[in-house]
């Protein structure tokens, strides 16, 4: 059911309950992007295969702190809008900014894991720090945000499989930022898996493809 | 590089304009296919060989023609040269910054140039002093003094009237040297390219848009017809799109509109 479509192409005809990434013209649904069309359950949508990270409420993202102010920290979330986290959110209770210094908790350059809490068109996005918001690692990779977002929202088994087969610790944000913790060899192997994700456009076969590539290293096979 | 300034038209004003259009009217009481009051005054700048001041509603444009002498372009050794320049002056509106010509001024100059050149209004082969060596250069400089939309038609009328009322001293060869003749002559004119500009606002086609109407339009289409009914220049402007049917319709409307405006221009020129 996963047909490649280009912008302007008719994805489906009829009456659907909900639709995403398509333009509804009467009873025709036209794709707005280059992507894979999915039709089913009264729903028609196109999964983007390229383009920037478009924040959605509930997304788990990893951002880089670019500014720390008394009331909030600003984060680069690999998008065309920034994210910000209120100082309060970093502490367990309401704090008085005049008494607590946010820069004691976060600094410019730090990696923070957070969930998208609130979006307003044309405004920076409000984030809520994750339970384990401090992200530290040995390597950082960027993958195409469209694919990262798809892996996240489809609750793909791929990230956990990579962790399992490589032995590395992995945190993958829906915004395309991947942080890896492990020795050089593990990092190398994770990179290979990420390269597979980047080079393929049919996300259906990805899972098996990655297992194939990672098993070339002589790791134990698993299904 | 950067798109030009559009006026911010409030929601209420948009409603007002659309309601009137539905009744075949515009805010200044015009019909959809009526031009604003047009006044054209030739010979306003005595130091220029030709000039004209056009007032099309509140759009005010002045064009000046200067005749110079120079070497011909290498690929056209037996032709005079046409150079058209335009500037939307800082006086024209609060959004116009002083500086080198912006993309709107450049587009304006080039479209007016095309209307003059492609209609073959002036026979440039008759503007040669010495073949391959000396030719006349016809400079047309357009200055937009006041901005209220439809710069294309206003500038074109100013340029055309200025050219067709130009009188200059020809260079004569007197015993091997070039000297200025004693009697002024007109340019060798053989046609008249008439420009008309239409805009698509919502589902309506209107002629001669004001700045406000241009700020609401999908797109505009400027068309130049010569005296035999041939189309010599077309330019679509604006960041929207026109239906193919709109284009076909406007081409026909432009033909009859240009015949109307042709009479006006010819009247001004013959009375100059």
């Amino acid at each position, binding site marked *: 059911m996963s047909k490649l479509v*280009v912008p*302007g192409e008719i994805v489906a005809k009829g009456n659907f309950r909900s639709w995403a990434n398509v333009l509804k013209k009467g009873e025709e649904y036209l794709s707005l992007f280059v992507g894979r069309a999915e039709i089913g359950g009264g729903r028609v949508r196109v999964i983007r295969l390229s383009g920037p990270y478009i924040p959605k409420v509930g997304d788990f993202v990893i951002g880089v702190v670019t500014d720390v102010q008394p009331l909030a920290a600003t984060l680069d979330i690999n998008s*065309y809008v920034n994210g910000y986290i209120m100082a309060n959110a970093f502490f367990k209770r309401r704090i008085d900014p005049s008494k607590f210094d946010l820069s004691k908790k976060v600094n410019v350059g730090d990696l923070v894991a957070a969930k998208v809490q609130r979006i307003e*068109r044309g405004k920076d996005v409000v984030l809520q720090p994750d339970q384990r918001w401090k992200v530290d690692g040995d390597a950082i990779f960027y993958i195409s945000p469209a694919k990262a977002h798809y892996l996240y929202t489809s609750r793909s088994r791929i990230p956990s499989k990579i962790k399992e087969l490589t032995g590395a610790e992995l945190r993958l944000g829906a915004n395309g930022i991947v942080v890896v913790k492990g020795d050089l060899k593990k990092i190398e192997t994770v990179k290979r898996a990420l390269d597979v994700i980047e080079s393929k456009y049919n996300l259906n*076969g990805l899972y098996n493809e990655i297992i194939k590539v990672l098993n070339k290293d002589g790791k134990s096979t698993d299904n | 590089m950067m798109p030009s300034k559009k006026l911010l038209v409030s929601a209420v004003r948009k409603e007002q304009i659309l309601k009137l259009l539905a009744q075949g009217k515009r805010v200044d009481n015009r019909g959809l296919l009526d031009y604003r009051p047009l006044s054209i005054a030739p010979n306003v700048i005595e130091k220029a060989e030709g000039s004209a001041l056009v007032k099309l509603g509140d759009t005010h444009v002045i064009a000046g023609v200067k005749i110079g002498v120079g070497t011909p372009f290498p690929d056209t050794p037996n032709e005079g040269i046409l150079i058209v320049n335009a500037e939307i002056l800082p006086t024209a509106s609060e959004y116009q910054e002083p500086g080198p010509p912006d993309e709107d001024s450049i587009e304006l100059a080039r479209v007016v140039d095309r209307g003059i050149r492609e209609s073959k209004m002036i026979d440039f082969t008759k503007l040669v002093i010495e073949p391959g060596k000396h030719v006349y250069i016809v400079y047309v400089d357009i200055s937009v003094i006041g901005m209220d939309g439809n710069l294309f038609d206003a500038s074109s009328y100013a340029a055309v009237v200025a050219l067709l009322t130009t009188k200059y001293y020809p260079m004569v060869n007197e015993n091997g040297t070039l000297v200025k003749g004693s009697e002024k002559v007109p340019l060798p004119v053989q046609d008249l390219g008439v420009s008309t500009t239409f805009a698509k606002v919502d589902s309506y086609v209107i002629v001669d848009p004001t700045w406000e109407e241009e700020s609401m339009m999908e*797109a505009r289409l400027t068309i130049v017809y010569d005296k035999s009914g041939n189309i*010599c220049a*077309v330019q679509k402007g604006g960041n929207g799109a026109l239906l193919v049917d709109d284009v076909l319709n406007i081409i026909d409307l432009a033909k009859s509109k240009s015949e109307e405006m042709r009479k006006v221009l010819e009247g001004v020129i013959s009375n100059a």
Partner: protein
Amino acid sequence: MENQLIINGKRTDGRGPTDLRPLKIDVGIIKNAAGSSYIEHGKNKIIVAIYGPKDSHRYAMNIEKATLRCRYHMSPFSTEERKNPQPSRREIEISKVIRDALEPSLILENFPKTMIDIFVEVLQSDGGSRSASITAASVALADAGIPMKDLVEAVAVGKVNGTLVVDLNDIEDKEGESDMPVAFMLNENKITLLQMDGKMTVEEFKAGLMMAMEAAKKIKEIQKEALAKKYSQGENKK
């Protein structure tokens, strides 16, 4: 005196009046760009790169939608005579009309306060470079994931020795009786670029417009193939 540009229905390059020049498009050729494409159309060799959506400059910021900017530039070695690298008035006008040809297809409201840049570099120029640029840029914008209602394709029609022809080559562009580049959004039957210079009767204009539309349909197929080539599964090489 007049050059014979079309003899017995054959043009200077052997084509018939409705034949397109060879056209090929590659997608995603510049790693750093959000989207990119390379087109060869006739002897035109043009690269387009898209950057953005990204933070807009203060002066250009629009709170309703992304600001689209376009730069069309010819490389100094692209033409017979070396071209001065400084942007000419022609390049400035072409930059403007290309931008106005693509903007109607894009849904810029999705990215308010940002800027999207279209950079067109003509490496080798032949007739119809602005049309080829538009065709390539639309593909590059799709590659960049910018939401759009339809792809945009462009072609120049004209008149040589009294005959209407499609996709003018360099000689026809320079010596023909008229030159009319047109860009289409075919799904909605819309025109986003239309310029003409030369002399045409009303009938010729209308017929030429329809010929351009037929050519645009063929070009659209090539655009779709180019995108499918990059984005389909299988023997995928990066």
